[in-house]
């Protein structure tokens, strides 16, 4: 009995693992955007064991035997959504699939993204089907500190299989966009005072922790101490120029790494953002213009990029219909409004990877990097083009 079971198991294992692990793939593209140099006309990407083996013009590369060949008009690195809530937020939009915002308190830095991520959520598949292979997701906007974020690949059946980085940023919200469901500060200044008080506490906590003093572990303080120690970044969702300046003030006071998220009025304070060296994960280009984001512009991504401010695209958080946006589409509108096509493609891939600190693994087609690839039948940004294939970690997933 036992023998048979083992035999069956081994047989099944071979069946399952063989096509996944030993895949050797050659992706041929009429245009290959490597993001590590000029696009290659008539290029080839060789993939082995989940990693990129070699990239170059077809004239220089002979595809070895045993490689499965895929062909596409346009090939690019897998796209990177620099801020989303998918996996914590589900497509049904019912209470039982909305875990991006805990409303029991306004400041909860201890909440981990991976503990609430549903790798099988249909919205994750929706992003994957649009060429997005990596997503920075987690707790959403709506609380002063709503929790932690993480980076995953848009594949895998469990968060463990999907995980790239378990703790990437702490999600802050500043301005007036704190959820009404939370016992929240009544004014902007009160919100900032609450954050300052908490960061002052965290400062002394971090000091004790660094000195090896006797202290009782507090999960929230652990996360804030990691922020103050520069191990994770603050992802501050903020739109109005004066609120962005307040975020910069807070950052300068406590000296933590920060990313501005949204930034509907970032174009008003380009010099200040540049001086502060703070990158911006720009609001979805097509964001609805109301509330703090009333003054959003299609031209923001282009203006910031031209000014030399690191930028990335996000699908953001959507509370209703549609339940998620798609960065491929947001990038298209930005491209047509001052950013330009080539820059938009960079922002979708290598620029996002750099901003998230994962460019050693993803964001460009270079030997040794993860084999994450998007294939298109035309200009990737055109509405009427299609994604013809997606490869993640060397496995064809679409």
């Amino acid at each position, binding site marked *: 009995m036992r023998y048979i079971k083992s035999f069956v198991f081994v047989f099944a294992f071979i069946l399952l693992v063989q096509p996944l692990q030993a895949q050797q793939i050659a992706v041929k593209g009429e245009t290959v955007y490597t993001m590590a140099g000029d696009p290659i006309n008539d290029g080839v990407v060789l993939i082995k064991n989940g990693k990129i083996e070699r990239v170059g013009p077809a004239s220089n590369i002979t595809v070895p035997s045993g490689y499965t060949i895929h062909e596409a008009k346009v090939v690019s690195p897998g796209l990177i959504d620099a801020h989303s809530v998918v996996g914590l937020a*589900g*497509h*049904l*939009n*019912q209470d039982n699939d909305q875990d991006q915002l805990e409303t029991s308190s306004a400041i909860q830095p201890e909440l981990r993204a991976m503990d609430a991520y549903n790798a099988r959520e*249909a*919205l994750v598949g*929706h992003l994957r089907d649009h060429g997005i292979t990596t997503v920075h997701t987690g707790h959403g906007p709506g609380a002063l500190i709503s929790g932690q974020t993480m980076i995953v690949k848009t594949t895998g059946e469990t968060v463990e299989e999907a995980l790239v980085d378990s703790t990437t940023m702490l999600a802050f919200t500043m301005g007036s966009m704190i959820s009404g469901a939370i016992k929240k500060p009544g004014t902007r200044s009160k919100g900032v005072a609450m954050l300052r008080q908490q960061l002052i506490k965290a400062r002394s906590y971090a000091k004790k922790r660094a000195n090896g003093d006797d202290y009782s572990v507090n999960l929230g303080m652990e996360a804030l101490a990691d922020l103050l120690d520069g191990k994770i970044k603050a992802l501050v969702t903020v739109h109005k120029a004066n609120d962005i300046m307040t975020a910069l003030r807070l950052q300068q006071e406590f000296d933590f790494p920060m990313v501005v998220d949204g930034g509907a*009025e970032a*174009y*008003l304070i380009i010099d200040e953002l540049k001086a502060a060296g703070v990158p911006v994960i720009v609001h979805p280009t*097509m964001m*609805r*213009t*109301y509330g703090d984001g*009333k*003054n*959003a*512009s*299609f*031209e923001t991504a282009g203006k910031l990029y031209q000014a030399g401010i690191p930028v990335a695209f996000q699908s953001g958080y*959507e*509370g*209703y*219909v*549609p*339940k*998620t*946006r*798609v960065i491929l*589409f947001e990038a*298209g*509108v930005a*491209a*047509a*409004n001052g950013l330009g*096509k080539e820059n938009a493609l960079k922002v979708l891939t290598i620029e996002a990877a750099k901003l998230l600190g994962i460019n050693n693994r993803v964001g460009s087609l270079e030997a040794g990097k993860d084999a994450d690839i998007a294939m298109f039948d035309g200009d990737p*940004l*055109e*509405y*009427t*083009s*299609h994604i013809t294939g997606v490869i993640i970690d060397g496995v064809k997933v679409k």
Partner: protein
Amino acid sequence: MIKPIRSILLASICALLFSLNGYTQSIPQAFKGAQIIPISGEPINNGVLIVENGTITTVGGASTNIPSDANVHNVSGKVIMPGLVDTHSHIGEGDGGDRSSALHPDVRIMDTIDPRSDTFRKALAGGITSVNVMPGSGHLMSGQTVYLKLRPANTIEDMLLVIDEEENIYGGMKMANGTNPIGNPPFPGTRAKSAALVRSLFVKAREYQAKIDAAGGDESKMPPRDIGMEALVQVLEGKRTVHNHTHRHDDILTAIRLSQEFGYDLVLQHVSEAWKVADEIAEAGVPASIITLDSFGGKLEAVDLKNANGKYLEDAGVMVGLHTDDGITDSRLFLRSAALAIREGMSRKGALESLTIANAKMMRIDDRVGTLEKGKDADFIILSGDPFSVYTHVEQTWIEGHNVWNRANEEDRKFATGGYEVFRGEVHTHHTDGGSQ
């Protein structure tokens, strides 16, 4: 006494329109060199469009004779197509019925719209020239919709698209089924109750109609005036179209069933699960105005929404239109909605029609707008390139021979891009009124 005042008013409105646009309409305007997509026929390369006195006089090829007194616009390399028609929008910052009832046939959104709302400029920036502005979907019947031409206007009357001169009808009737209108009494608690409430109302309307018929024109025998019933009689007589918000396949069929029972003219709106019942919709001969979105979900009824609905409906032989449902999608990007339908298999021809003539038919304004044909209103847009390319911009929007929006003008351009203090008005966000989409 009344007549001269009205004439003076009309004259001053005309004067205002002319002064806003800097020239009179008596000079013909000729546009030459563009690719013209007339919708009524194949695209004409290097075409000529001539408009005069607010209407189209000529659509033709390069050899078309241009009158010597015409003001000639060289638009080589551009694309000209009819002004876009939006069958379902919430621009204008208007209101519909309140929470006192689930059915408000008496309520007119036209009584609440701000003609100066910047949302109209936003729509012009997207190339929209005619629009059906509707109250929301949080009611079984949220009120009378209004068909507007987006002329520069001081009053809502300046914008009305009157479809029935005799009865002064300039809109449809907004209805909704599915989950949005469900709530605590007086709102229905179930779908069956929703249908029963609608049926009861139409039964009453029929009785009211019968009383009017029985009076035979004798004022003394007429029933007491009921403005809600009067509007419903227009619906029963087929003079006022019902625009029915509906998502789920069974709700779509319920909307059709009710329209057949009472014999009213129906346009299905949203129709998220149209792909499941495309043949049934086709058999009923009911047109569908659909929406394309960046993702499915967000509410249970939209979980199965497909951007391929356009393709499925087209294949089944249904007349398909598109709408923005602004602010669900942005009026500035209405062309994009059609491009997304093409991405999922709709034909280019069908997509072009779904932005123009199909919508005009659904609003019964197809004798005036929706194609570029001699005698129709001179409503058209000049595009920088192919209508369905992401890189294409609307460069100019013309209504009745007037250039009402021009991207080259910074004061106009800002409505295309957004920016600091561009949009001051309310965007209908759908979060507060029980949802619209």
